């Protein structure tokens, strides 16, 4: 009994010492708050979706260079029926290369998710610890009168464990996040540069395909365009003094109005308009994605620095740009690409 009592006292002392050792470094260092990495994760996912859509939409625009004139024109299909094997090969090459971009952004999404999971794990482990501790304290309370020495020590441990666990979990999570963001920050920056150059190249392809579609439409409607242009030239050559009374003028105006209201003209201008709107949507998405990618890399650097300096990064700008790209992407997807 004597030995048990002294043993218990020794155990209590040991426990108190352990608590002191555990508390000393933890209390000396301020509790480490973790940055909100959710905006970065949201942006990474939005960027992946926008880059994927932009690549596929551009490839489809190249695909359609083979068929756009044939589909929209009635007067002259001979030119548009000429095979363009190189353009088909270009679309395949773009898809193959763009698949690597998609895969890289998949990897960045996995990484962003891992950052989010780390923060969530730190928070949820605290909540779980709290549940365990609360249960433990109830039990300890029930035995307090029977083993006062033990219960005091365990109760003290329980009272402190929540705070300790919060600090330990956040410390661990913070260290993990800091290591990951510091390791990958140069890679994020380099990849952002590469993707920005890729998006710029895609922008040039988009401009080129837009112009080629215009050329194809002009060629397919050449006979009609030529007829209308000739009438307008004749009109321009009529002497201004004769305009009011000239039969030639009246006749010309009638023919011009007929041409302008004809089905070929409606079909031609509609195809041109469709081409312009598709191009505008694609380029708006590409431009926004380029802007977002720079903000994305910048946000990652901010997070890495904040973790090193134990601060909270400001990601409001990133959130605003993400909303913009999501809206543009929705507009790109809901319209059929000509």
């Amino acid at each position: 009994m004597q030995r048990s009592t002294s043993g218990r006292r020794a155990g209590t002392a040991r426990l108190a010492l352990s608590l002191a050792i555990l508390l000393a470094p933890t209390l000396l260092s301020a509790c480490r708050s973790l940055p909100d990495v959710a905006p970065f994760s949201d942006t990474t996912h939005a960027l992946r979706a926008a880059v994927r859509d932009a690549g596929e939409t551009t490839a489809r625009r190249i695909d359609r260079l083979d068929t756009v004139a044939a589909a929209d024109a009635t007067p002259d299909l001979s030119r548009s029926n000429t095979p363009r094997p190189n353009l088909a090969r270009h679309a395949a090459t773009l898809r193959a290369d763009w698949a690597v971009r998609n895969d890289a952004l998949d990897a960045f999404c996995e990484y962003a998710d891992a950052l989010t999971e780390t923060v969530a794990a730190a928070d949820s482990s605290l909540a779980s610890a709290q549940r365990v501790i609360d249960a433990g304290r109830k039990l300890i309370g029930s035995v307090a009168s029977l083993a006062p020495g033990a219960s005091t020590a365990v109760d003290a441990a329980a009272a402190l464990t929540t705070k300790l666990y919060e600090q330990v979990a956040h410390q661990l999570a913070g260290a993990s996040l800091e290591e990951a963001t510091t390791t990958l920050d140069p890679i994020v920056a380099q990849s952002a540069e590469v993707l920005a150059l890729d998006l710029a190249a895609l922008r040039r392809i988009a401009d080129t395909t837009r112009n080629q579609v215009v050329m194809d439409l002009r060629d397919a409607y050449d006979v009609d365009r030529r007829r209308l242009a000739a009438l307008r030239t004749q009109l321009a050559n009529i002497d201004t003094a004769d305009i009011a009374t000239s039969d030639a003028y009246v006749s010309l105006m009638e023919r011009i109005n007929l041409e302008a209201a004809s089905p070929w003209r409606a079909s031609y201008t509609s195809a041109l308009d469709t081409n312009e709107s598709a191009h505008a949507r694609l380029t708006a998405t590409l431009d926004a994605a380029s802007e977002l990618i720079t903000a994305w890399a910048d946000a990652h650097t901010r997070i890495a620095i904040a973790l090193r300096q134990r601060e909270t990064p400001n990601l409001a700008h990133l959130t605003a740009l993400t909303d913009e790209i999501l809206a543009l992407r929705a507009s790109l997807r809901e319209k059929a690409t000509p």
Partner: protein
Amino acid sequence: MSIDWTSLRSPADWTAAAETLIRDAARAIQDKDRAAVDCVSRDIMRFTTDANAANYPREVGRALSETHTHLTDFAIGESLDSIGSRTKALKEAADRVREVAERTRGRAALLSLKPIEESIADAQTIADQVKAIRKAAKADDPDPAAIASGADTVITSAQRIINRLTDLAHSA
């Protein structure tokens, strides 16, 4: 070569200008000069606008259209070469990112599960020990030694939780 648009009057002028454009296009493609390709493309676009459609023979329009297709082929190919030249770097970056993501995710899993599972197991142990102490105390002839021993065991269990936290703190 830049076109003097104001000097184009007769179909022959337009035809000569088109021939110049076609030669410029061939040279730009041969020289792999993207800026020159874009410049000729712009000129062909301007040449073939609706307003100009009646100024030149049909064959000239067709030749320009064909030439523009070659320019498009070159321009897209050049942009794709530029994209392709960066593919390897991006592949390597993706591999490295996945490696770090996996390690980070592994740590997150460790953080959220293992210590908690162990704490729950220890809490259960403490609960069993407390039950044993209460049983001993309620006995007709309570055994102080058994109660003291139970209390020691509770201390040991608590110690184990503390030790685990200490380990975690050190590893952090």
